[in-house]
């Protein structure tokens, strides 16, 4: 008994026993931990002219649904004087948005002076990789260095030139080319297409519901983009909720793509128009355009919009009045609201109503 105990002490002290730890990436933005029960499957291998080595993409799933994509990437990074091979593990969500990264065992990230990344550098890298709209998107590699401003004291990139001023805020100090290379991998269009293609091929009712219930804006938009006509009926509450609460891009997509069969239903028109005041300015314009094109229009839907006319800008208000002009019947409340707006001294576009005789 004593011997066994001693043996265990020895074994544990020597670190021979290694427990399988769950994967904990250095940075990972999805709201769950990668557990041991997760399974992995290879989605495919990508090899392009500008890739150093084929990129194998894995899909990680749990029992419920697919969760995210990942890939161990081996790529080259060069500055004017030297090149090296960089190893990194990237993570994307189900719609191909970057969600995190990790270093690969024995290959920490280094700067061009061969100094390893500090904790701050790693955090900064994640921060800059999260920025899909980074200026790096529009820059060619040769534009990263301002060759006119070569300063011996400039240590920002550790290369022969000075980092172009506009780039400085978008890269890890001393790792200009690594930052650039990694950003372009995280947002590589071909990788993203492969990932979204795979997710598309997996779409079933369960996955659509998972995407719609997620808090990720991209997931909801992706679900809507892949809706079949009947899905607008099945998931009516979801798209109506997104219309009220989501980003303008998603709202615009829904309004633009509502199938004719669904949109011509009075109850749908009314539900959409009822939320008019909660829409952003562009969504309102899109909705007014849609209303104008609609032949069978619910009077009640138009009435909902009339409830807060002062929220409209000049063009929208005129547009709305034009739409009303073409209608044979309007509700009493709609007319009352317009008359009220005409008398409202604080409403700066009230004068437009004078052009519409039918109101008076």
């Amino acid at each position, binding site marked *: 008994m004593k011997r066994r105990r*001693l043996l265990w002490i020895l074994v544990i*002290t*020597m670190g021979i026993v290694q427990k399988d730890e769950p994967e904990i990436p250095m940075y990972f933005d999805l709201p769950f931990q990668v557990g041991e029960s997760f399974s992995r499957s290879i989605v495919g291998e990508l090899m392009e002219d500008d*890739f*150093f*080595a084929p990129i194998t993409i894995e899909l990680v799933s749990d029992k419920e649904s697919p969760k995210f994509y990942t890939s161990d990437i081996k790529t*080259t990074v*060069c500055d004017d004087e030297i*090149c*090296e091979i960089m190893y990194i593990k990237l993570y994307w969500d189900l719609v191909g948005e970057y969600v995190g990264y990790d270093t690969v065992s024995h290959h920490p990230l280094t700067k061009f002076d061969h100094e390893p990344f500090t904790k701050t550098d790693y955090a900064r890298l994640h921060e800059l990789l999260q920025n899909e709209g980074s200026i790096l998107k529009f820059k060619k590699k040769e534009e990263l260095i301002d060759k006119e401003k070569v300063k011996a004291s400039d240590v920002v990139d550790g290369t022969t030139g000075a980092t172009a001023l506009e780039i400085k805020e978008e890269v890890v100090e001393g790792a200009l080319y690594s930052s650039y290379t990694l950003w372009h991998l995280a947002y590589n269009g071909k990788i993203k297409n492969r990932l979204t293609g795979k997710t598309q091929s997996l779409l079933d009712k369960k996955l659509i519901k998972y995407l719609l219930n997620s808090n990720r804006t991209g997931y909801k938009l992706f679900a809507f983009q892949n809706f079949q006509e009947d899905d607008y009926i099945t998931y009516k509450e979801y798209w109506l909720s997104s219309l009220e609460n989501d980003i303008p891009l998603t709202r615009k997509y829904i309004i633009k793509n509502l199938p004719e069969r669904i949109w011509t239903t009075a109850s749908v028109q009314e539900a959409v128009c009822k939320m008019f005041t909660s829409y952003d300015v562009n969504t309102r314009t899109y909705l007014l355009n849609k209303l104008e094109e609609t032949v069978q229009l619910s009077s009640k839907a138009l009435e909902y919009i009339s409830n807060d006319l002062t929220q409209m800008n000049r063009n929208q208000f005129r547009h709305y009045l034009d739409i009303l002009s073409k209608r044979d019947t309007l509700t009493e409340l709609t007319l009352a609201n317009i008359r009220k707006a005409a008398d409202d001294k604080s409403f700066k576009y009230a004068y437009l109503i004078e052009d519409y005789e039918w109101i008076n």
Partner: protein
Amino acid sequence: MKIHSTSRLYIAVYLCLMLVFNFFILNSAVAQEQEEKELKLPLFNLKNLDGIAIQNSEIMEKVVVIDFWATWCAPCIKSFPALIETENSYKENDEVIFLYVNTLESANRDTAYIRNFLLSKGFDFQVYMDTPQAGISLADQLDITTLPHKLIVDKSGVIRHRMTGYSGSDEELINDLTTKINELLAD
């Protein structure tokens, strides 16, 4: 029978000491091995684009400049003219050899690509391919992770100089190489 707390302390101290001791022994052994590995050029068998091989035996008693490069490495390509110029200055000297070793190459670039690539850039030197043998390439054995990477090996096969990167100055590279080669020729 229970183990007394004093005995437990002794065991713990003993184990810690053992760990520290082993750590140092292991580290010094690794360091020594690494030092030896770094000094001597490992056994190699590199084939050129036509499949003709070169081995250690063929460079014995010579000063050898080995240039490790890849087609994706722009500084490597930029340094070629200076290397060729230095090589030409030793054309009459049988004791000096230049080996251009293609290594860490992109997965989709084969020998045909490399041949065309060099021709398109106007280079016609002999290139040797660092094809991994049993999964290990010469660059792996030499811990080469950055390019361009040059080794200067003396007549006894010992690596005497490692040069990484290319500053962009041909003159600097030619002078540096020439000084080092001459130094080894004089040995």
